[in-house]
């Protein structure tokens, strides 16, 4: 074990030991001279006592020096290091950084790359540790720094995947593996220019970057996009190289060949027109025959299944209310349901109506992850359990639209100000009846709801509301106002979720809003905005994997997500272009990471020191030493 220091500059404070040393020596040397008549009796002090005193004086000196040293040591923040680790950390290293993106997967490309990597391992200078890092859009240390044999085995096992190239990540990983050592990074790659798109490469100071060109195929064909029109399917074909040639492009839907065309693929991008439209369901696969380039980009998948409707829960007031309440609730629910699922057909939303008391019932399950948003059209009968459930749903990322209605609701909505513990308050004021109906005006055209409405946002002003409930915005954001100036739509952030409060009913009683052309778009954009936290994309690029689906999204194709849905994974189309930079350009693009390595080591040292906290022990020791010094000093004086 070796001792290292987090702040070694404080060791200079150890020079303060000179103070007790000098004082001790000066005191010994410069005792005042005192003439005396006869020193026989002074000499006669028992020898044992004098020796003991001298011993005490030296012990005092040692204790004082020790106290000063302990103080300086404590401030230098020492920690124990494994000496083997320290020696290991100072040994120079060679890291072979091998490209495993799919641009290395052309026929007869892998073997030369491995040969270059093995050659780099063998050519590592004597005394160098050797490690291997594989990289594409992710980095893997496939052989830690150590013996060459392990590095060779790791290189033999490396195979390219379907991911794209990210030089910056690879260089960073190789630099981290080298740490603060001197050394070099040997990059075995096809020098694909697109690999620099994600950022500049930085390596620690003292590390040389050497590039070994693994070569690239003479050409490559790839399907980089698939679009559908009502009459045909459009595919974008990419050809790498300088020579045009014929290529066969096929369209498959669920293993059924729908169309196949032969086109002359010019260098660059060519739009291929397949004379059939895509169906409304299934998985379309457009492929091209390519015997030279990369294989994984010869197919592109398109999921045709309609998106699943977002479940929307509509909570309406229940129990005994004022006269007309039931009719008004029915009116609101009618228009909401019609707007969200026109004609009962499957739309983007799947409304489900539940009465407030049922929603708050103990037997009712929690709002599942599939619920995109909740519309609270009435709170009567919701109860404490229902309010808590609703608040939890919003705090955990759900979206809630509170529809203010046009009548006092003392048993329901009016009690909801405490829904989130008072922060925020819903701010529902007393119902207002307008002799002159008021319109609705957008306040924030950049807001996703208003932006989604596009030109229809201006048409909101034609809506007429004869009954409204003024809102107190508080800390919320006013997205729309009534023409009398009162807030009409206020947004609040609650935990991870969103809360929108609308200051009027969404039924025909009291307004003509449901009959306006803006009603459905307004409702759709609002609920889409509220349910946008639903993290369920269905198409991915290899490597852009959502949590839990890493294994699936690393392989291009169609996958079952496990919850009944299908996912489509395609390769990154930029990786299909093998255009390369020169080794000199590559090296020139690599910068020096001036302080990152030092910072990394310092962080590690700080973590180690924090875990050991030897300074506490040293300060305790210093206190003990000072106490001993005080006791011994009293005896000496």
């Amino acid at each position, binding site marked *: 074990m070796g001792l290292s220091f987090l702040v070694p500059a404080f060791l200079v404070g150890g020079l303060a030991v000179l103070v007790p040393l000098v004082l001790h020596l000066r*005191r*010994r040397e410069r*005792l*005042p*001279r*005192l*003439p*005396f*008549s*006869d*020193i*026989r*009796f*002074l*000499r*006669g*002090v*028992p020898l044992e*006592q*004098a020796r003991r*005193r001298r011993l005490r004086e030296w012990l005092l000196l040692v204790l004082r020096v020790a106290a000063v040293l302990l103080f300086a040591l404590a401030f230098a923040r020492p920690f124990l290091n494994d000496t083997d680790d320290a020696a290991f950390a100072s040994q120079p290293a060679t890291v072979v950084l091998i490209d495993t993106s799919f641009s290395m997967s052309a026929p007869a490309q892998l073997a030369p790359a491995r040969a270059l990597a093995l050659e780099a391992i063998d050519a590592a200078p004597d005394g160098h540790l050797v490690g291997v890092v594989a990289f594409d859009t992710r980095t893997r240390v496939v052989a830690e720094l150590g013996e060459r044999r392990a590095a060779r085995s790791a290189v033999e096992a490396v195979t390219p995947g379907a991911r794209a190239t990210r030089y910056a990540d690879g260089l960073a990983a190789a630099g981290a593996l080298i740490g603060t050592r001197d050394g070099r990074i040997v990059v075995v790659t096809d020098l694909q220019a697109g690999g620099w798109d994600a950022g500049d490469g930085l390596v620690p100071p003292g590390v040389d970057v050497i590039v070994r060109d693994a070569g690239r195929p003479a050409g490559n064909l790839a399907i980089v996009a698939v679009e559908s029109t009502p009459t045909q399917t459009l595919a974008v074909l990419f050809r790498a190289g300088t020579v045009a040639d014929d290529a066969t492009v096929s369209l498959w839907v669920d293993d059924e060949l729908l169309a196949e065309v032969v086109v002359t693929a010019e260098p660059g991008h060519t739009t291929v027109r397949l004379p059939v439209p895509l169906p409304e369901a299934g998985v379309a696969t457009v492929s091209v025959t390519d015997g030279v380039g990369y294989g994984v980009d010869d197919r592109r998948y398109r999921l045709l299944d309609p998106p699943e409707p977002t479940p929307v829960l509509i909570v309406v007031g229940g129990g005994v209310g004022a006269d007309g309440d039931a009719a008004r609730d029915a009116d609101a629910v009618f228009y909401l349901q019609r707007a969200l699922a026109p004609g009962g057909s499957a739309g983007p939303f799947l409304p489900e109506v539940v009465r407030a008391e049922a929603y708050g019932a103990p037997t009712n399950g929690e709002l599942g992850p599939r619920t995109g948003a909740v519309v609270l059209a009435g709170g009567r009968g919701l109860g404490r359990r229902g309010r808590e459930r609703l608040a939890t749903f919003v705090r955990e990322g759900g979206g809630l639209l509170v529809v203010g209605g046009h009548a006092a609701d003392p048993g329901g909505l009016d009690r909801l100000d405490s829904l989130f513990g008072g922060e925020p308050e819903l701010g529902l004021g007393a119902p207002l009846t307008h002799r002159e109906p008021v319109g609705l005006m957008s306040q924030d055209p950049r807001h996703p709801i208003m932006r989604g409405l596009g030109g229809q946002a201006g048409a909101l002003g034609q809506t007429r509301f004869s009954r409204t409930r003024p809102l107190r915005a508080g800390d919320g954001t006013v997205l729309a106002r009534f023409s009398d100036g009162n807030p009409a739509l206020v947004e609040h952030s609650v935990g991870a979720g969103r809360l929108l409060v609308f200051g009027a009913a969404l039924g025909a009683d009291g307004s003509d809003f449901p009959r306006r052309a803006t009603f459905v778009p307004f409702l759709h954009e609002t609920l889409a905005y509220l349910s946008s936290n639903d993290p369920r994309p269905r198409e991915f690029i290899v490597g852009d994997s959502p949590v839990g689906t890493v294994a699936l999204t690393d392989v291009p194709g169609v996958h079952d997500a496990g919850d009944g849905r299908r996912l489509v994974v395609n390769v990154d189309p930029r990786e299909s272009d093998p255009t390369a930079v020169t080794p000199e350009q590559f090296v020139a693009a690599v910068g020096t990471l001036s302080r990152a390595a030092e910072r990394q080591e310092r962080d590690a040292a700080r973590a180690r020191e924090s875990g050991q906290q030897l300074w506490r022990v040293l300060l305790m020791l210093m206190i003990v030493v000072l106490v001993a010094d005080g006791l011994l000093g009293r005896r*000496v*004086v």
Partner: protein
Amino acid sequence: MASVTGRERSFLDPAVVARIGSLELIARTIVEGFFAGLHRSPYKGFSVEFSEYRPYLPGDAPSTIDWKLFARSDRHYVKKFEQETNLECHLLLDVSASMGYASHVVSKLRFGVCLAAALAYLMHRQRDAVGLTLFDDHVVDSVPVGTRGGQLRALLAGLSRASPGTRSDVQMPLHQLAAGLRRRGLVVLISDLLDDPAGIIEGLKHLRFQGSEVLVLQTLDPAELTFPFDQPARFEDLETADAVSVVPAQVRAHYLDRMRSLSERYRRELRLAGVDYHQLDTATPFDTALRAYLATRARRW
């Protein structure tokens, strides 16, 4: 014996006396101050003594005629007196380097010089024959015993020349003096006795063996008796120039114990030898020493 008043005592204070320049004046101040406190003359019976009557002869001073006897007998007789100067006093003053030590204004040597001067003055007034010997490891100066008119001045002159010398060897002058004594007398030794006690005691016994009365006035500095030092220091021996670093607190008890042992040894062994021993410190008024002298003299003569 009456006590000494405060005013009179101030003339016996070594610190006061030491500021007086003239040694004769010092001696007179001490002795007169001492006698002023006694209120009766110590000279009575000592100066002259009636011997016989003889008939008046022409040439005799008429003042010597005893007119009372003439009135009774109608004859002229002359009173004849005999001076009582049969006591020889020897003052031995140690002038070794250690006697030069002073922790306050008066050194042991200065104290000894003043004391010797006072004793010489007193002895001279008593018509005693007085001699003086100054010594360290050898006899530095001496004034032979005598009673002539200039004896006191010679004694004081000898004392005024006293200065700290080298190492002390107390027994040497004692043996020398004992060997040279013609008749029994009184020997007064003024010394710090910081020498080999066995040798000193041997020398004093030698004097006693010769029949002399011996008065030892051990003169020490208060600091030698109390060792009041508190700061560590390097103590240097005035006689040998040897030095030792000492933390007083560590050695005080040991030192004082050794000093007490030394004093006790002198006191015990000198008493057995018939030697009067008194320990004085340089802050002690001189009357203590004078009383000791008078007591010793009165006891013997």
